[in-house]
């Protein structure tokens, strides 16, 4: 069996998740009440039996470091290893990273050490379920230089904005790759997941850095559609690209549907995350909860409709939470009404009795706010 190295990339520059991004990289953001976004892609790696994973972080590594070091992603803990590499006034005196390629180059000796045959580069701001071995098998079979995971969408005018769209020939090979400016609804979008040989990866990194200090991996791949044979592998399931606060809100709302959730997370494809050792959730008499997902450790006396409730959230009597995403450790006091809100961690909402956004423009409450 050829050795495969997993590389979890950091978010590209087009990702801007208003509010949430001020406190942690998007990959470390809480989702669905009990996960971090990064859990989905890391579980993709380990469920695909990829044992060596390098996680690249642009900056602010603390929350990711703590989360990953306290989570068992089902690796053999001696043979497998998740290594976090981040920009810093650090190793070889580099500054913070601007683009992914700069980070890869800085840590190329750590990548070389792994002696891998193939490299799978995956994004940290996407949520989807994918067995990477399927892409690798296709990559080998089709004798591609690079294989890109792609997804056909009819929402390209609203989602995946500034991501990469692919133009394919009749063999589903990439003939062009360009930024999505939202001009078409229908498009084939790149899931920013690339399979290639370790050698090709190294060459691309070299080429990118000599071309421009602002070139990213996706830029250099876009340049290579002619000299190289770039194939695609079609992803047909659920995809969320968390590049804006709206996308974050929508992803929570869409995955919370029982059927959708069980397709993404199930016994055959577990999503690993850190345990907090919270007890189950107590629904007191008088509580009304419908159409929601709720993490453990909550105490609910009020009403929760069509929402996502994070770990250890308290909802007091008379409070109404509707169409909202409440991150862990939040306290919602008596008679507070929230609608279409994203409430960041550790907030205490007492004095303001009504906060209302819209589904198109949800309101954001800052981490640790006492309002």
């Amino acid at each position, binding site marked *: 069996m050829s050795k495969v190295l997993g590389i979890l990339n950091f978010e590209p520059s087009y990702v801007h998740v208003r509010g949430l991004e001020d406190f942690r990289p998007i990959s470390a953001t809480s989702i669905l009440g*009990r996960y971090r976004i990064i859990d989905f892609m890391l579980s993709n790696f380990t469920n695909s039996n990829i044992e060596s994973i390098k996680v690249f972080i642009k900056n602010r590594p603390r929350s990711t470091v703590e989360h990953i070091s306290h989570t068992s992603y089902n690796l053999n803990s001696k043979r497998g290893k998740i290594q976090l590499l981040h920009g810093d006034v650090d190793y070889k005196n580099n500054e913070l990273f601007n683009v992914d390629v700069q980070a890869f180059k800085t840590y190329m000796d750590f990548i070389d050490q792994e002696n891998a045959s193939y490299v799978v580069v995956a994004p940290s701001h996407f949520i989807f379920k994918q067995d990477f071995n399927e892409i690798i098998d296709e990559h080998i079979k089709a004798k591609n230089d690079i294989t890109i995971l792609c997804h056909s969408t009819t929402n390209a005018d609203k989602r995946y904005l500034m991501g990469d769209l692919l133009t394919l020939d009749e063999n589903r090979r990439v003939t062009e790759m360009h930024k999505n400016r939202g001009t078409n609804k229908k498009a084939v979008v790149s899931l920013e997941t690339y399979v290639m040989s370790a050698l090709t990866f190294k060459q691309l990194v070299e080429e990118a850095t000599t071309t421009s200090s602002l070139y990213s991996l996706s830029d250099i791949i876009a340049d290579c559609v002619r000299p190289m044979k770039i194939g695609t592998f079609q992803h047909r399931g659920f995809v969320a690209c968390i590049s804006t606060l709206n996308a974050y809100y929508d992803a929570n709302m869409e995955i919370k549907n029982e059927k959708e959730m069980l397709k993404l997370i199930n016994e055959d494809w577990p999503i690993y995350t850190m345990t907090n050792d919270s007890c189950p*959730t107590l*629904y007191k008499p008088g509580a009304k909860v419908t159409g929601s997902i709720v993490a453990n450790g909550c105490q609910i006396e009020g009403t929760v409709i069509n929402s996502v409730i994070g770990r250890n959230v308290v909802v007091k009597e008379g409070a109404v939470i509707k169409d909202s995403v409440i991150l862990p450790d939040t306290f919602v006091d008596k008679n507070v009404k929230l609608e279409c809100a994203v409430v960041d961690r550790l907030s205490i909402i007492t004095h303001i009795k009504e906060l209302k956004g819209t589904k198109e423009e949800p309101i954001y409450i800052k981490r640790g706010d006492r309002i």
Partner: protein
Amino acid sequence: MKKNNMVAMILAGGRGSRLFDLTKKVAKPAVHFGGKYRIIDFALSNCANSHISTVGVLVQYESILLSSYSARSSTWGLDSKGGGVYVLSPREKDETGLGLYAGTADAIYQNLDFLDQEEADYVLVLSGDHIYKMDYDKMLKVHQESGAEATIAVIEVPMKEASRFGIMNTDKSDRIVEFEEKPKEPKSNLASMGVYIFSYKTLKKYLKDDAKDPNSQHDFGKNLIPAYLRDGLKLQAYRFKGYWKDVGTISSLWEANMDLLKDNSGLDLFDPDWKIYTDDASATPQCIGENAKIDGAFITQGAIVNGEVTRSVVFSGAEIEEGAKVEDTVVMNNAVIGKGAKLVRCLVADDVKVPDGMKLGKKNSEDILLVSKALIAKAGEDHE
């Protein structure tokens, strides 16, 4: 550095036959409880929170699951270098054969070599099937300060129930002067919780003597404690105030689960400073459907509720389908309550599928109905 040289020994060998089908394939301490826990999590978490680092778990009946579960020391943080959870099953030794543990005292006796190896100064003997939160470190301080050879945790029970327990009669300073096992006319209401701290050196001597006695039942309550008293050794009572429950029967197991719905039961699982740790299952969050109705419930991750839940506890992976109603009921791991089924005052065992529309349990019944696979199969036959 040993944090303290007290080694805990959890007696977890019982068959728990009054739990009927729940313990057909798993030992009683491994039975699920309170949504996400197993019963033994309470004793093990208490040990971890009391800064005990070495715990022996004495198993023998259907022990695969219990053994492998307990051996994962990291579940309770008990994986520090010096310590760990050691599963102690009956074993063959040089020059002896293999035998079952003959009684609670014999179980400890057969593992004296383990206690020697761990250099125990004190031995904490616990039962693996009680639900409570207790700081054994505080009890050790009382033991040390009182200069007793053994300290027994006691709890006040209603006088009329005292005859169901081992009752300690004490003097003013809480020194135990008499021990009566299930006395017909109890002189006090201080019941033994089955939690003992022994100074090891003396315990070892008494266990060795007891092992030689052909008439002994090799039991702490029946033989060891009486021998200590007979010889005039100092035995101290340690008064415990708080929630404590032996979950040895279907109805007591059901009751203990129901206590979790109360605000004032005395068992606070939300306390961040004394968490009860358990296996970290990779489940989804709990999913409450659009037509669900919940009126008082304790529900854990991995559960899916599309029906009606009233004053009930729903365990991991359990599913209440649309139109189903559960009331005053415990729905254990991965059990499914089919569409339109109605359950009241039931305890549904792990993995049981209650067929659509089936009605089980009675609202005013004194008993709790154990809904096992066998019961469902029988109900199916009756129907045909």
